[in-house]
């Protein structure tokens, strides 16, 4: 079955096709989301948002790019939307805490606790990385996640980000430099 046929079946409401699509692509979406959030909870929320969006806008897929590229784009957009939302929630946390219940409270700083194999050291590292990554501009963060976490080529990342390979290379260099700077600061603070 071609990608277009698969999407057509999803548009027609074929649940089996949708489940097959989910099984095929959920790990790709999850990995990308983990690259942004470094915790299970937020990554799963992104997976949910992405596949709901796929179901809603399957008819809009124009075949100009591959299905995987289209899915990466949706994942990147949903992750950035969520990051922006989390930042705005953090900004108004004093207000939202009045309305928010314990379950829905902001979880940005909570590292993955549902993953049984992860050791305490890993959790601490994830927290530190998340803190440093949060300081990166969105484009640098996206270039870093796509090329370093997802192991995509500069060309593939450029297609997803709708930019040039050169621009992606530059973004990765700047992302790494900024990460080194931020991690250096964190290291110094921990030693104080």
């Amino acid at each position: 079955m071609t990608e277009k046929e698969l999407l057509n079946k999803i548009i027609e409401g074929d649940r089996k096709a949708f489940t097959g699509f989910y099984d095929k692509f959920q790990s790709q979406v999850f990995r990308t989301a983990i690259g942004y959030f470094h915790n299970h909870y937020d990554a799963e929320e992104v997976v949910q948002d992405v596949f709901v969006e796929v179901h809603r806008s399957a008819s809009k897929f124009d075949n100009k790019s591959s299905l995987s590229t289209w899915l990466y784009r949706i994942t990147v957009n949903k992750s950035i939307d969520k990051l922006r939302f989390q930042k705005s929630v953090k900004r108004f946390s004093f207000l939202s805490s009045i309305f928010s219940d314990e379950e829905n409270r902001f979880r940005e700083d909570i590292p993955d606790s549902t993953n049984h194999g992860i050791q305490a050291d890993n959790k601490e590292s994830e927290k530190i990385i998340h803190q440093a990554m949060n300081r990166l501009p969105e484009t640098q963060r996206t270039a870093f996640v796509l090329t370093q976490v997802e192991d995509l080529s500069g060309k593939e990342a450029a297609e997803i980000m709708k930019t040039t390979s050169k621009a992606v290379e530059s973004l990765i260099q700047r992302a790494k430099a900024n990460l080194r700077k931020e991690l250096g600061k964190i290291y110094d603070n921990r030693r104080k």
Partner: protein
Amino acid sequence: MKMKNEKEIWVENMIRHASKPSSTSNAQESVLNKIYNVLDKAENGNNIISFKQFKLAGLVAMLILALNIGIIGFTMIQKNNKIENTTTYGLNTYNLDLY
């Protein structure tokens, strides 16, 4: 060759760790059920807003109300200032007339 110090090694390890998150590469099975729940709600035309959306709407309404109160308050102060100015000017004129 320059030896890397402890800080540089730590930073490089962290960057390597950032490239290879330690979490598993799969979402839990329950995520698919959640997706179907959302899709079912949409297909059944269930447009009842969630509690989360309700709270957000309440927050926005409060902000708009606060903004309106601020604008009205500011306008009233401005008006009062104008009235006071006019009165002072009027009195002065009246006094001048007396002389």
